């Protein structure tokens, strides 16, 4: 990619996706067949419904990811969710299948999630799941079924830019629901075969649409953050997971202050996240203390005042660019976690898929393991995985 071609913010808004699709339909696949992922929630249901209305041949699938199918835990793979998804597919009159992706989810998401925490980092399993399952394995299934597209209920938009002949990944129109952060790894090839039918709607419009269609999940509440840890106690989840086979991987150690004074001990670095305030187990301090550093070698967790969390930037690895490799510096807004305002920054690409991200002013709590996603306004430029603070 050359910088001129894609100078941030320029570029004509492409036509609505329906029109692009006609152009793309020349491949070997069925031009109007779409594999639509249903989670049992309202967003993906309305996404599938919109595709049916637009005349696509929609095949609905749900992904069985975690082993817990007892239906009592409220996690994402509960029988209730599959039942809801199945009902939606029936109402829309489309075929429905549940894909067993447990093995892939275990190796590509849960194992990585566990390893990252045990190494003192803070992973984002949704990012991994999107990259490796929804937009990789699901696409394989789409190919198997002769489908041209994979569709999800993400709040994000894909637009085709005729002047550059490229696909642009944009934030969802509903800024509060925008999920483009989770999609930064998508390549041109992937964007060309991806549909986000609710990306241009607000959440309330989606619910309204669901009501209009009489979908029984119209009022269903939002799902959890980490679907496979329904009670939110991720530390216990990790401990139970490794208890039988690898208990020694837990790194316990000391909690120290900014001068290196030992304030206490802890049971494992996986219980901490940079910027964490609660649950430090050190009392008697006058000022709030935050986790500022986690050393996986010594097991030492440093805590300090809020000002010590401030950093000027970060180093990201595994950097990808939506419009193709970027070598020149670029000014962008950066999101360092999903629920975080953007930070104005300068991105300096380095060798080996790394990039330095220099913030315009200092920001607190850069968390290794999360993604840093680069934006120009609504447009996702790319992103990478946070290696460390600068």
């Amino acid at each position, binding site marked *: 990619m050359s910088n001129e071609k894609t100078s941030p913010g320029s570029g004509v808004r492409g036509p609505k996706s329906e029109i692009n699709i006609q152009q793309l339909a020349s491949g070997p696949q069925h031009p109007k067949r779409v594999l639509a992922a249903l989670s049992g929630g309202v967003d993906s249901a309305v996404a599938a419904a919109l595709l049916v209305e637009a005349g696509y041949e929609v095949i609905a699938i749900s992904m069985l990811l975690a082993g817990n199918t007892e239906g009592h835990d409220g996690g994402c793979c509960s029988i209730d969710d*599959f039942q809801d998804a199945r009902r939606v597919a029936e109402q829309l009159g489309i075929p429905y299948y549940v894909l067993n992706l447990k093995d892939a989810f275990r190796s590509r998401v849960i194992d990585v999630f566990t390893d990252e925490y045990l190494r003192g980092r803070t992973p984002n399993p949704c990012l991994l799941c999107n990259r490796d399952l929804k937009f990789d394995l699901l696409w394989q299934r789409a190919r*198997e079924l002769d489908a041209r597209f994979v569709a999800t209920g993400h709040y994000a938009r894909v637009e085709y830019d005729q002047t550059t002949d490229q696909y642009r990944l944009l934030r969802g129109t509903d800024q509060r629901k925008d999920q483009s952060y989770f999609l930064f790894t998508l390549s041109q090839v992937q964007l060309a075969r991806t549909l986000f039918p609710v990306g241009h709607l607000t959440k309330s419009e989606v619910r309204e649409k669901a009501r209009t269609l009489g979908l029984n999940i119209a009022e269903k509440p939002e799902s959890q953050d980490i679907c496979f840890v329904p009670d939110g106690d991720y530390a216990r989840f990790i401990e139970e997971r490794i208890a039988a086979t690898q208990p020694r991987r837990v790194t316990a150690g000391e909690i120290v202050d900014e001068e290196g004074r030992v304030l206490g001990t802890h049971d494992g670095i996986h219980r901490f996240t940079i910027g964490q305030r609660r649950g430090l187990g050190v009392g008697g301090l006058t000022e709030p203390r935050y986790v500022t550093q986690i050393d996986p070698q010594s097991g030492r967790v440093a805590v300090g005042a809020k000002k010590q969390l401030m950093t000027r930037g970060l180093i990201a690895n595994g950097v990808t660019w939506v419009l193709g490799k970027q070598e020149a510096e670029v000014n962008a807004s950066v999101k360092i976690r999903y629920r975080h305002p953007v930070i104005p920054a300068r991105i300096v690409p380095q060798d080996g898929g790394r990039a330095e991200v220099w913030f315009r002013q200092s920001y607190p709590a850069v968390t290794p393991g999360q993604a840093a996603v680069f934006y120009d306004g609504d447009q996702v430029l790319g992103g990478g995985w946070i290696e460390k603070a600068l």
Partner: protein
Amino acid sequence: MHPVYLDHNATTPLRPEVLEAMLPYLQTHFGNPSSIHRAGRRAKQGLETAREQIAALIHCRPSEILFTSGGTESNNLALGGVLRSARARGSHVVTTAIEHSSILEPLQALGPDGVDATLLPVNDEGRVEAGSLVAAIRSDTVLVSIGLANHEIGTIQPITALSRITKERKVPLHVDAVQAAGKVPIDVDVLGVDLLSLSAHKIYGPKGIGALYVRKGTAISPLLHGGPQEREKRAGTENVAAAVGFGIAATLAAQELETNAAHCLLLKSKLRDTVLSRISGTYVNGLIDDCLPNTVNIGFTDTTGEGLMMGLDLAGIAVSTGSACAAGSLEPSHVLLALGRDPEAAKSALRFSVGKDTTEAEITYVLDVLPKVVERVRAARSIMSNE
């Protein structure tokens, strides 16, 4: 092309004759067969006629037939009932690694109650060897349970030979004949079995009704209590209309057994032979001979059964692969794993089970669609691994 249904081992359509026989018992003859008045007697008459018809299918006495809610309950009753009544003598059961989950899971669930199960291995064609049964029977063994024909691969076990061993060791033999009934002749004396499970909906009867044959003199305790029905072995008002349907289905199955088996075998063989010759990387899981006439399980290298099944379904063809979990997704087949297939291979097989109404035109259609679906699934995999 109308939908092509090649999943008769999962269930079969209800025969019109069966429906017709059932309707009076859902409408006019609604009585409770335990009631002593006229309405009750009329219902009882239907129930007992059905019992005779089912007994005739497997050559036993009507008094040896207990009605249940289906094959799963029959298997649970055989295991749990014999184990309960034999508690004083022991709680060891011998079965095989390829049984239906309604055998394996009850045994697993009974583990905490002290029930110990030995799972006999099978060879790579799914057959149990007599020697392994001899070695597995212990002094505290109270039951041997072996499926007559396997639900996934169709392999038929040499029950007559195996029952000689159980008789000699004086251990009752239970046989799950849910898949075999109506497809191969069954005579409880020739087989030498003491208990045998049947299900109506596998032989063009209704769902929700099954039977357990219990040889006279075989000790068995009830699992359901609360009434004297079924000789105090299975409490609860009988599902009369379904039993009547089961009876007719059994009679017709016995009458048409040879014709239907020959018809199924012809179509199944054509399907199997053409797939094996026309599609590369295909092989049969199980046996060619000593196999249910209607069943063939074919492995397709470099595919997923899931993808093949979905692709065929979208083309209107119903087949099966592995077994579904509660959510409706597919699990790798424990049967194929027990044959020694690796987990990949256990996930890339399809079970085709034809029925008495399957036509040659339907097989031709499947043979037209299947190679394309296989090719597409393989192409998708190779593209993905290159991307």
